[in-house]
């Protein structure tokens, strides 16, 4: 399965005040709060961790059909991080997801998968001329033929829309 999340940093600066009192404590576990505090650019770490949670939640929601706002149940850890790319893991109850995040000055984009090796197997597509259907839970699929449907994840924020699936 696949999930993805894009944060438009210009948009998040308009609509979110991440430094608001109490906000970090509601969204992030104590360990994640330390990552934010200790990183040289706290804003980037906030949205990096947030996009990891959102991308992982999309798989969790696809698997379980459960809808909830439970950011602290999606527990992030980072395996590697530099200025432009981050690899990490998100666990949620007994489930574990692997993430790859691309960081630019304009946006932060995370793709999450169930199996680490699948991270090399994802592709961004253009939805033009493609047929996307949603099931009763609002979960999207890419229609390949009358009987073949592929998992697809759609994320839009501000100036961006990202659609990802497996190759």
């Amino acid at each position, binding site marked *: 399965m696949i999930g993805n999340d894009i944060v438009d940093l210009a948009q998040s600066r308009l*609509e*979110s005040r991440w430094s608001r009192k*109490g*906000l970090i404590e509601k969204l992030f576990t104590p360990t994640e709060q330390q990552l934010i505090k200790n990183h040289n650019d706290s804003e980037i770490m906030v949205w990096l961790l947030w996009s990891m949670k959102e991308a992982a939640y999309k798989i969790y929601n696809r698997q379980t059909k459960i809808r909830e*706002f*439970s950011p602290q149940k999606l527990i992030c850890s980072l395996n590697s991080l530099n200025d432009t790319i981050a690899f990490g893991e998100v666990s949620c109850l007994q489930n574990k997801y692997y993430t790859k995040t691309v960081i630019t000055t304009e946006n932060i984009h995370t793709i999450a998968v169930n199996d680490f090796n699948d991270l090399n197997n994802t592709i961004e597509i253009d939805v033009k001329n493609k047929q996307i259907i949603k099931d009763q839970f609002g979960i999207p699929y890419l229609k390949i033929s009358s009987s073949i449907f592929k998992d697809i994840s759609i994320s839009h924020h501000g100036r961006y829309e990202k659609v990802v699936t497996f190759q």
Partner: protein
Amino acid sequence: MNRTELTEKLKEIIKPYAANTEAHENLTEETDFIKDLNINSANLVDIVLDIEEKFDVVIDNADMERMLDVKTAIEIIETKLAAK
């Protein structure tokens, strides 16, 4: 505070975050924050913090988890107010 007053107060809190202003104008207890009002999920926490400030209550993680629509939000606020 009765349920109508509470709903009105909640409606005011939600207003700045609701991308769909028409759906916000016609808000009912059945209105879903994300599906109907197109509220960005990152702003759900702002709604929770605003509720805590405006109603002087504490919303724990278990309550926050369920706060995806007007009806559930009202029920949680009512329970918190009754416990004060």
